């Protein structure tokens, strides 16, 4: 009995040592979560009808990413694609100070506390805003990513969408976790 216990201890100890020797998190490209979010973003571009605005380059659709960018290369795969006859241009803004006009703005989780400033900056610009704020109640952006169980889902603030002159297709409304009218 004693011997077996000791052997267990040895097995246990070697397991711990083996695990401790594991390399730390390898930089293995964008996480699955952000690949999924990037893919959603591409779908949003397809399923949301953006208003025509005079102050934009014809033929270019600018997608801004504000805050700590966790997409890595995943979002760059959207750049250069043609959506509704326009070429997608991806721009990254570290902070509000760097922001430039864009038709679609992704607001990263790191900007949670700066929503009011961002809204001020946006003013009445017609922008499809997308955030990733968990448990925020009625979203302060047009689309908000949430974790529904172990899946990535999103909620839609349709009132804000209307105000921003955005037409959201029924396909997108159907798969949204919650639609706030």
């Amino acid at each position, binding site marked *: 009995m004693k011997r077996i216990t000791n052997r267990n201890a040895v097995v246990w100890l070697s397991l711990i040592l083996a695990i401790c020797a594991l390399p730390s998190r390898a930089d293995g490209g964008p996480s699955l979560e952000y*690949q999924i979010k990037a893919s959603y973003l*591409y779908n949003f571009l397809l399923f949301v009808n953006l208003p025509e605005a005079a102050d934009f380059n014809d033929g270019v659709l600018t997608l801004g990413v504000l805050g700590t960018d966790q997409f890595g290369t995943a979002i760059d795969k959207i750049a250069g694609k043609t959506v509704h006859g326009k070429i997608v241009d991806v721009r990254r803004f570290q902070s509000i100070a760097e922001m430039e006009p864009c038709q679609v703005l992704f607001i990263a989780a790191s900007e949670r506390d700066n929503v009011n400033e961002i809204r001020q900056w946006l003013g009445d610009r017609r922008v499809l805003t997308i955030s990733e704020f968990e448990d925020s*109640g009625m979203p302060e952006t047009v689309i908000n990513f949430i974790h529904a*169980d172990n899946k990535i889902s999103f909620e839609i603030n349709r009132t804000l969408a209307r105000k921003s002159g955005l037409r959201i297709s029924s396909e997108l409304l159907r798969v949204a976790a919650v639609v706030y009218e």
Partner: protein
Amino acid sequence: MKISNKNHRRRCAVLQMILVFAGMSANLSAAELDIDITGTSLDELMGMTVTSVSKKEQSVQRTAAAIFVLTNEDIRRSGATSIPEALRLVPGVQVSKLQSGQWAVSIRGFQSRAANKLLVMMDGRPVYDPLFAGVFWEAQDVVLEDIDRIEVVRGPGGAIWGANAVNGIINIITKDTRKTTGVLAVVGTGTEEAGFAAYRQGMLLDDNKSVSVYGKFFDRDEGYRTGGAHDDWRSRRAGIRFDNQVSSQDHLTLWGNVYHVVLGDNLQDSSLSFTDLEHTGMNVQWRWDRVVHESNRMVLQGYYDHTEFDAAVLGELRDTAGIDIQQNYQLRPGHEVIWGVGYRFTTDDIRNSAGLAFDPEKRSDDLYSLFVQDDLELIDDLLKLTLGSKFEHNDYTGIEVQPNIRLAWTPRPSVTWWTSVSRAVRTPSRLEHDFVVPGTLVRGTDDMDSEELVAYEIGYRVRPLESVILDITTFVNIYDKLATFESTEFHNKLSGKVYGAEAMAKWQARRDWRFALSYTVTQFDLEAESGSGAGQDAIRRAGAVNTEDGTPHHQVSLRSSVDLSARLELDCGLRYTDNIPALNVPAYLVADIRLGWRVRDGLEISLVAQNLLDNHHPEQTSTTATEVQDSIYGKVTWRF
């Protein structure tokens, strides 16, 4: 000798299965985690599962406690049909089925139907019965699809949680009704699941208010026992939940539930006929969450719980009301103070019988508690200290102090080492104090003290790769004054240590294939005081669970979840539990398999086979225990 050979063979079988799983996955390359960003449809995205990314789980990374979060998706894909079955998925939780509806659930040993060292809560409302400080698991249920998550803390609950949080805390948290809008209809049947159905309807009343109502029933078949088991389990319940985001700062939640549960029992009464065991109850609860500022959050909650327990040998009517307030206040970034006060009132009325009585028949008790905890970043993002204590006054032992100190070291964001020392007590139950076996000298005693624990823990959490999570905890629990039964009454004459470890690994091998492996080892080294009248025998009578031989030393679980296509899911699980010599329960290895088919959006059909590999096996024994049988059931889940 024969038994140990059998054990050895089973262990080999487990090893082989693990090797097969490992072999299958060795061929998979990390590149297959990549998805086609511009070529994936909304429907496909909706169906993709990511390993533990919930906010709750991320915040767990730096917690200096052995915490595990079981998600709704984990439960759905396991095919579990009850809360105890779902708890089998949690590393370190020991779950055995005594009868169709009777469960022994524990953490770190002392497992029995009367396991009394856990704090179990539904949405923060304690559900353990002060009568025996244990949980009637047969009476605890919700619509499983509406569970948001089950949070399990192994080890003393730290300063924050309420009484009874000695070996662990289980908190079952249901979904905000904003996330349960629409109709959910579940119906199914099978060999052990004679029939079950649940209906839930949720709706948004306006931008801020939402409500959800449900009804649920199930009839579960008898287990296996020579001569018939008579242990069928029938449950009916209904309830409502209302959420109101009153303002951007205030969230109000109301709950209400009613239920009636009947257990067939093979315990024969004096006239030798089988009598049912019934639970009837209702509860209401409210909770007010206020976020004054990100750095100042408050929770105020209250509940009222009425339970009725009716068996041949005993009846219990109980009313419990409680109120708790908690505030998290951030003094400056990296320094947070959490404090709270709570009050609970419980009153009961026992129906005595010739076999078992309580003196007095009626009793009311108050419990006051106060806790304060300080979370301090000693070195920002690197070293975090948690220091706190709970002070509680109860009517059995007066004031109890339960302090703890915890340290978390995060050298890299993906690596956390943590350690803790904590003290916890299990106050005497009404049973230990007041029970009487009529016509004998056997009775409870007012001299009964609290059981005491000082726990030492070391934990390690690491995410070596984006797709791999490892979590290991080792513990030594030093107990003093554990309850013993000495010829006629309970005393506190057992002490010693229980030590062990829990290890858990999750691996997302491919975008559509995930594995979870867990291993739990628990060792006992308890000894009765020399003055203990009947020595080892006394310990046995206090419950074989207290002895070295009364606990399964090893538990292993391996699960594989594959998305065969966007609409087809295959889940396989293997569970091994070591033998329990004191109860003559042999080791067992069982398999569960689930095949789920999403016919179209909102409609899912699943086929679940459980407890495979043998026809029937015992998991615990007592004079009334039955054996668990292999089974299969089909289920249709419809949402619209």
